[in-house]
């Protein structure tokens, strides 16, 4: 378990330049720790036969063919896509912040890649939307293998943008969804969080499952600064000179109030909320997805 966790460490993952490799590392590492999970196996549509091999599940033996040929054949099924997952990745300027080796954006890209890989591995359809105050990239949800590569290529070339405005992409998405889907929002939510969560609530009300991954940097959560400094807002370049030691308590109080609001608001709205510290491994995010996926389907 500890070995797999090492592979999920963001700082280790950030050293992997190939995004597919990074996503696979995350997913395989995660799955190796879940080999006894009861949620595994969910194929639906017949595709081919193969000879029975020891260890195969007896439920998948084609008994009619056995009656005709006296041989055990295992029915192989083509996975049926019954879930459409759309990943929304916030690429605004604030996502570029980092106090260590991994920025929130990099962490989000890795998370999105892993989720896409994981979803495709389960034969679900996955799409991608990157946005700041506008939709930057839109890839519709599909389940074919080349589609994953497209998503990964898109993620590999993501650059940070402008100010965050998640409301508009989410509204556009809500208008385009015709089937029950799962919406995964990866963002630092440094926007008008109440409107964003209201929009997520609308998506939830349309029958979609919604997961909000709220990314926060370690420094944002603990505000470890000491020396008097001029703080520059990365999104609007506004500045503020202060002595952190004097206001740390007030900052953390304001932050916790904000985080608490986000969490409660999401809970009330039926949105799964997951606060992620970018200095911690990704398995928590994947667990959250798996839990949600199992509960929904």
């Amino acid at each position: 378990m500890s070995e797999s966790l090492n592979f999920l460490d963001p700082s280790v993952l950030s050293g992997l330049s190939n995004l597919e490799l990074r996503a696979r590392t995350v997913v395989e590492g995660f799955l190796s720790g879940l080999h006894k999970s009861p949620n595994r196996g969910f194929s639906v549509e017949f595709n081919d036969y193969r000879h029975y091999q020891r260890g195969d599940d007896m439920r998948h033996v084609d008994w009619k063919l056995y009656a005709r040929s006296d041989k055990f054949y295992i029915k192989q099924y083509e996975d049926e896509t019954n879930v459409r997952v759309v990943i929304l990745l916030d690429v605004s300027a604030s996502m570029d912040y980092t106090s260590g080796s991994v920025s929130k954006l990099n962490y989000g890209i890795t998370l999105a890649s892993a989720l896409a890989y994981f979803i495709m591995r389960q034969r679900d359809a996955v799409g991608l939307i990157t946005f700041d105050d506008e939709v930057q990239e839109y890839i519709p949800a599909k389940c074919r293998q080349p589609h994953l590569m497209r998503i990964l290529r898109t993620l590999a070339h993501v650059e940070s943008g402008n100010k965050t405005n998640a409301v508009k992409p989410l509204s556009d998405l809500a208008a385009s969804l015709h089937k029950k889907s799962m919406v995964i929002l990866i963002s630092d939510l440094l926007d008008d969080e109440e409107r964003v969560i209201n929009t997520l609530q609308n998506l939830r009300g349309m029958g979609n499952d919604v997961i909000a991954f709220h990314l926060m940097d370690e420094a944002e959560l603990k505000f470890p600064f000491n020396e008097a400094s001029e703080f520059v807002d990365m999104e609007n370049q506004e500045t503020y000179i202060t002595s952190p030691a004097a206001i740390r308590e007030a900052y953390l109080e304001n932050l916790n109030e904000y985080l608490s609001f986000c969490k409660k608001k999401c809970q009330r709205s039926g949105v799964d909320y997951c606060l992620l510290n970018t200095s911690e491994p990704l398995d928590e995010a994947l667990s959250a997805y798996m839990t949600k996926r199992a509960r929904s389907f």
Partner: protein
Amino acid sequence: MVFLTPIFLLGLLAALIPIAIHLIRREKPPKVMFSTIRFLKKTSKKLVLFQQLQQIALLLLRAAVIVLLVIAFARPLFNQSVARLVDADPQSAVILLDVSMSMRYGDTFERAREEALDIIGRMGGGDEVALVTFSDSAQLVRELDTDIASVRALINEVDAPGYGSTRFYPNLRLADQLLETAQFDNRAVYLISDFQDTGMQDADESWKLAPGIALTTIDVGEVESVNLALTDVRSPEQLLEDAAEQQILARVRSTGTVYRDAGEVSLSINGQMVDRVQVDLGERSEEVVTFSSLFEAEGTYTGEVRVSGDGYSDDNAFYFTVDVLPKIRVLVVNGEASENWFDDEGHWFGLAVGGTDASPFDLQSVESSQLSAAALRQSDVAVLLNVGDLTNGQADAITTYVEQGGSLLIAPGDRVEPEVFNRQFAEITPASLQRPTGRIDDYLVIADYDRRHPVLRPLVGDWTARFEGHWPMQARDDAAVLMQFDNTEPALVERDYGQGKVMLFASTLDLEWNNLALQGLYLPFVHETLRHLVQTDVRQRAYAVGDTINLDTQGSAASVSARNPSGSDIRLVDNAVFTATTPGFVTATIDGNEARYAVNFLPEESNLARVAPATLYDAVINPDTSPIQSREVQTAQMIEELERPQRMWWYILVAVMLLILAEAVIANRTYR
């Protein structure tokens, strides 16, 4: 309050360290890119304001801590506490406060007053102190007294300096005498002065203060002074009417420590400016300015020479008076008148007295038969030239004339009978004539004369006249022999009679008995003799500050009053005497007649050159006087004794100070 170690007060500069740290580190805080500042901006404004106030309060606290530490290093003590300790040895002190004219320069005297008050402030309860103000004379304001508060009040009431000159030695002697009666052994003299160099006049090198008397010199003089002074003005005191144009000379000198080479000198007569001259001293120390003026009409003129262009006005004016008198009326009684000039007894005398139109004499010549009391009354002086035939009535008239104030000059010749002369002029003659007792084969000359007499004082020279004839004279006891022949017989005798004066010459004033009329001294001798006979009551009109002026020298005036230059009445002593205190014109009214007197400052006070106080100290301090007797040294010694065993404080305080400085640095590094 005093400090035991005041050198540490320099450490107050260390209070700037926290401020410097605050200011240096305040500049350019580092920029930090952050995802959002929304949570920073939501922090309370009060919190930020409080934080700023906290910083300022912290800064002030640190600076205050350093200041207090530095003060602690300096070891403050209340002066009274040290004074109480020193009071165990009470002091008898004399404060000598200079009030000479030079102390009027700028605010010198106010500084002197402050110094005196400062000395009083350091006096303890058991001390006794005397106050003396001095210039060329001293005024004992308060004898030795333990009532310090009253002395303080007296110092505040001391009048501004007058116009006296400075003298140190007489006043130090006075202080020395005052301290002879001092209660305490600890005796001190405080000399507060501008230490004008002229104050060292009358120095007595053999005199010292008594042993044990400490001297503290307090110099309040200006280091740099600028002054143009009138050190001398020469003007005629008395003139006869219709006199020629007179010259008035003024000597201007730069007497300050800073040389001033230019100024303006003006002359005013009777309040009207008559001339003005620019003075350029150049590289010279002084310049003589010449004014010309006419004094034609009879009367008294007041003149003022004033210099301007410096910063010290008290010595810029010099005052003088000029008395213009009427011509002297001379009545000559010619005892041997003749149409032939060589036989005329009055020929040579007439040439000497009335030879020119500009003569100051109005000459009337009569023969003896024409002499009358009326003619005498119309003359100021009567001259008898070889007159031997006067009637007794004429002689009585002459006697009355002299008694009532007339003057008489007698030059007897061969027409005079000694017995008749001695009888007719017995009352008034200064000497009796004697008949010659033997034959005189040789001539006589003037062997000796009174060089101090007003007539003969300006006639210093060789009296080479030969006297082949003369009258031997027996001078009266109340007469003064002014000239003697070489045979010791009197040649000129003078006597006052009544209100008049009589002079008797032993020979003639023509060439009959001597050749004096051919000598160069003849004319001035005649002129000076006549002037002297007429102006017997020449009043002194020019005085200096500090002089005593007697307005009625003869004591005959019925009413005398006087006003000083400012117009206020002068209080007279013995109805006629006062001491001049202020430069300017004193106006006196004597029996209804007004007279003006010029009073001037002493030129030496214009010299602002200074003497080093140490020079005076070395000159007067007694070698047996221990210097530790002074209050200052006692206090310093007491402070040293208090401070020495407690120096451990220094090291403790140094450690505390270093710790606090470190805290200031570290705190700024951590919290800012």
